[in-house]
Each structure stands twice: as C-alpha cells, then as structure tokens.
C-alpha cells in the first residue's frame, strides 16, 4: 500500500499541477475547457460530499441540495449586507459551517433512529422546507426572486476555477483521510452491519452525524462557490433537487464507497451531460434518470468496480430485507 501510494502520489501531483495550470494556458474568458473543468470539479466535491454519507456510512441522504442552497444563501445574505466580500474565504467558511450546523441539528434526531428510511425521507423534506422558508423569507431572503449580487466584481473565471479545484482536492483529501483513519473503519462497519458495529463499541450516532456534517460542510462550500459564480441566488435554482440528483448519479455510476468513484463519475457524467446538451438539448434531463437506473441495475459497484473489486463486494449479497418489521 505504502509503496503504491508513493508512486501514485507523484502521479497525483503532476495531475494536480496540470489541472491548476489549465486557466493559465487556456484563456479563461473564451475557453470552454475552463468552464467545463470548473463545473466538473464542483461536482467532484459535491459527489464526494454525498459519498462520505451514503457510500461510506450507508445513510442515503436525499437532502444535499438543502446544504448546497444554504451555502449559497449564506454568501448571498452576508455579501448583500457587505459583511463579507467577493470570493471571501471567511464567507465560504461561514457557508460550510452553517450547512454543517444544520446537518448536526437535523442529523442527531434523524440518525438516532435505527432505520435509514427515516433519514432519507427527512432529508428529502429538509430541502423542501428550506426552499419554502426562503421563498417566504421576505426582505431577508428576497423571496422567490432571490438575491442579486454585485456582478461587477467578476472579471475572470480563474479564481473560481482554482477554488473549485481546491474544493475537489479538499473533498478527496477529507474522504481519503476519513476512509483511512479509524473513523473510516467505524463508518464502513456501520454501513455493513450496524448492530455488530454497535456491539463492538462504536458510538454509531456520533460517527453518522460526523459523516453527515462533513458531507454537509462540503456541499455548503460548493453552494457558496456557485453563488460567487452566478451572482444571483434564488430558491428555485439553489434548492433544486438536481443538486442532489446529479451527485448521487455520479457517485453511483462511478462507484459509491470508493475514493476515485465519484471523481470518475463526475467527470464522465459532466462530459455526457455537456455532449447531450449539445446534441439533444431538449431531452437530456431524461438521461440522468435512465442512467441512474441502468447504473444501479447493471453496474451496482460503479465503473470503478468493473476493474477492481473493492471491499464492499460483500454488501450486495447481504440480505437486508430480513430486518424485523
């Protein structure tokens, strides 16, 4: 493991440097590749955020758009009151923390129940609640029209690109760290057999909430970046279910519960979506639904699983249906 890591570490650094150089080689104003990679990196971070919760811990969250939207709104609200500036790291940190705090508040009661269904349902409702509160928020959230931010501060996509790259790498590092440390062992143990994990002395609730909060933190950061990119934060766009749907799809297609799965899934699907947008502009959203179904049915371990068999191979065989009712 160690030796392989040192070799692949060099490879990663070269790849990272190449990615970081892209906006300086290509013109970020006109070049499509800068925009494409910017979106792809954002999705890598978002899918990794979902992966930590669902892939590693086995808790299917359907509310990542809530954290994404909250992150965007924290930026919009703080910036429109001039508490933070353009591309302000303090603001982004605040956005991530707000999302993480929300995740802890919602997560503790939802995750303390044994069954995962409640978690999926509750998080699905969470996005809808936040959207409605935002729409009704009056002057504070500017209602359904949303908050318009001073777009005059925009001059180039380069900083956004670099931040997105940073977020993607950060998400990868967090996942890598969590997966390798004791935390990761605990999370995977919870995913594979909750009762056995509890019997081995793992504080199940603590680890589940931790994973959920970390996932929410990352999603909040992505939302914050998107707010700095779009300059118009409105409920329909920021609390859109697609911000959950696409990362889920990328994660599942690439391979949930693996480090590289979401990266492969995100880059692959971003390319597919862009191609579909170009070739079939009307119907491309249909494909995301079809792809999710096909991916689950035919490549349940994801594209990663086609090549190597990760340790979660056991999971599919586990008869979960026999839970007492």
């Amino acid at each position: 493991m160690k030796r392989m890591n040192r070799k692949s570490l060099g490879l990663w650094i070269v790849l990272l440097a190449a990615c970081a150089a892209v906006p300086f080689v290509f013109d970020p104003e006109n070049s499509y590749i800068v925009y494409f990679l910017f979106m792809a990196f954002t999705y890598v971070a978002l899918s990794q955020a979902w992966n930590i919760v669902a892939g590693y811990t086995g808790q299917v969250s359907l509310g990542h758009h809530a954290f994404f939207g909250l992150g965007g709104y924290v930026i919009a609200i703080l910036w429109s009151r001039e508490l933070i500036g353009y591309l302000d790291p303090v603001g982004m940190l605040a956005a991530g923390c707000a999302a993480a705090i929300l995740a802890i508040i919602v997560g503790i009661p939802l995750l303390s129940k044994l069954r995962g269904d409640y978690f999926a349902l509750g998080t699905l409702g969470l996005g809808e609640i936040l959207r409605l509160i935002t729409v009704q928020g009056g002057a504070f959230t500017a209602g359904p029209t949303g908050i318009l931010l001073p777009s005059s501060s925009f001059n180039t996509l380069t900083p956004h690109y670099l931040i997105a790259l940073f977020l993607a790498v950060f998400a990868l590092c967090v996942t890598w760290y969590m997966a390798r440390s004791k935390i990761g062992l605990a999370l995977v143990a919870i995913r594979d057999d909750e009762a056995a994990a509890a019997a081995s002395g793992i504080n199940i609730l603590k680890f589940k909430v931790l994973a959920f909060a970390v996932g929410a933190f990352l999603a909040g950061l992505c939302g914050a970046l998107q707010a700095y990119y779009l300059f118009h934060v409105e409920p329909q766009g920021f609390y859109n279910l697609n911000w959950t749907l696409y990362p889920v799809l990328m994660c599942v297609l690439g391979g949930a519960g693996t480090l590289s799965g979401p990266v492969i899934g995100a880059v692959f699907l971003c390319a597919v979506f862009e191609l579909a947008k170009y070739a079939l502009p009307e119907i491309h959203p249909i494909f995301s639904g079809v792809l999710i179904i096909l991916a689950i049915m035919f490549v349940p371990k994801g594209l990663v699983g086609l090549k190597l068999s990760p340790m979660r191979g056991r999971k599919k065989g586990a008869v979960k249906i026999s839970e007492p009712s």
Partner: protein
Amino acid sequence: MPVDIFFQLLINGILFGTMYGIAAIGLSLIFGTMRIIFIAQGTLIILAAYGSFWLFHLWGIDPYISILLVVPMSLILGVALYQGLFRKVARAGQFPTLLIAFGLMALLENLMFVLFTGNSRAIAIKYSSYALSVFGLNVSFVRLVAFAMAVLGTAAVTFFLKRTLMGKAVRAASESLEYAMLVGITPHTVNTVTFALGMGLAGLAGVATATTYAFDPFSGFVFGLKAMIALALGGMGNVMGALLGGIVLGVVENYGAFFLTGGWADVISYAVFLLVLMFKPEGLFSRDTSAKL
C-alpha cells in the same frame, strides 16, 4: 372564528387529505413487503392524471369512466415496474431500490415535461364546478367523488388484505418475510401483487387528482412528499394509519392555509413531518412500537 368556517375548513381538509391518504396507502403497501421507499409514487400519480387528462382531452372520455382504463393500465405498469426494475435488486437492501425509485422519478418527470410540456393542466368538465350544500357548508362535487373513490379504494385494499389468500400472503410477507417464505409464500409473487396494488391506487389517485386540481409534470414530487408525510404520520406499513395520516395532514394544511398565508402552510406540514420523523417515527396511530425496528 365562526363555526361554519371551522367546519368548512375541516371538511375541505378531510376531502383534501384522503387524496394524500390513497397515495400513502400505496406507499405503505410497497414499503410493508419490500422495504422500498417508493419516492416515485407521486410522479406515477401525475402520470395517471395525464392519462386521464389526455383520454378526456383527445377522445372526450369522461374522467370517471377513464378509471376503467387508467387503473388496469396502472396495475400492469406496477407489474412491469417490479419485474423490470425492482425484482433484480429487491433483496440488495435499500440503497439500490431507493436510488432506482429516485431515477425513475427523474426520468418520468422529464419525460412528461418533454412530451406534455410544462404547462399546467386540469380537466374542465361541466360538473367541475358543481357544489353540494349540506347544512350550509359547500362541498365540491369532484372532491366528494374523490373522497368516495379514496374510501372505496381503501375498502377494496383492506378487503383484499383481510379476506383473500393472496392478501393474507402479502400481510404475512410484510410481517416477516422469512417466516412467510417458510410457509411457502413466494416473495416475488407477493411483491409483484403489492407493487401492482400500489400502482393501481396511484392510478385511482391520479384520476382523482386530474378532476380536482391543476397539475404539471413536476407536481408529483411535492404530492409524493405529502404522501410520505401522511405515511410518516400514520406509521409505516399501516394501511388505515396511512389514510388517517393523509386526513390529518389535509386538515392541518387547510387550517394552516387559513391562518397563515399560503406558502407558510406548506412549511408547517413539512415541519410536522420532520418532527414526527425525529421524535415519533413509529407514527401517530401505531399501537405496537415494535414496528420501529
């Protein structure tokens, strides 16, 4: 608050809520036997509503007669969905089934959006605006029929579950699949029947929706979410509880909408939903708490 408004809101709430109720019963059945949270239920209801709408719009078939077509089609769709999508992954745990349902929802929503456009549709027929006056309260005719359909649907499902052999098998499977298999019940058969039943109810709810509300391809998500709320209120895997949960939700929403401006009423119902999930996940009407595990 005047007494007549109080009762008017109550009646509207009950009529409203039964719609959530029938959707929730379908969810409850599917959840009961397969442990699938079928979040595409609302979207399938809207699909059925479109079926009814187009039958009326293109061929002038009365929406209530279209039940004879829409419900059998929904039953067939239910069998197809189970055999095509869920059979393979039914035993693989919740992760895949939930995601397949999620994918199905996204697929159908966007498919309907492309085929039928995003325009809001509603069936306008001569009896759409009829209202009965009972003790000074106005009761919309189409909503009363929707209520009757919901009650009949529930009664039919209850009869099926309690009185027929297959129904007993379904109940046995939702109690304990392993023991049900021990006495010779085939899970796939039971699951297929349950799925068909759930979709049949979705078809019924779809026709009821088409006659009473305006809908568009994306209204299914919110409708499905409301059905989830009804299910959570009633307790998962509990047929009568699901109907009651729907009624409670409808009543809460109606009073909420009266006292607060429209949008906040939805916030309230989701807040109730979250609170119930957090603190009383076995549902408001559940008697045995062992269902919690």
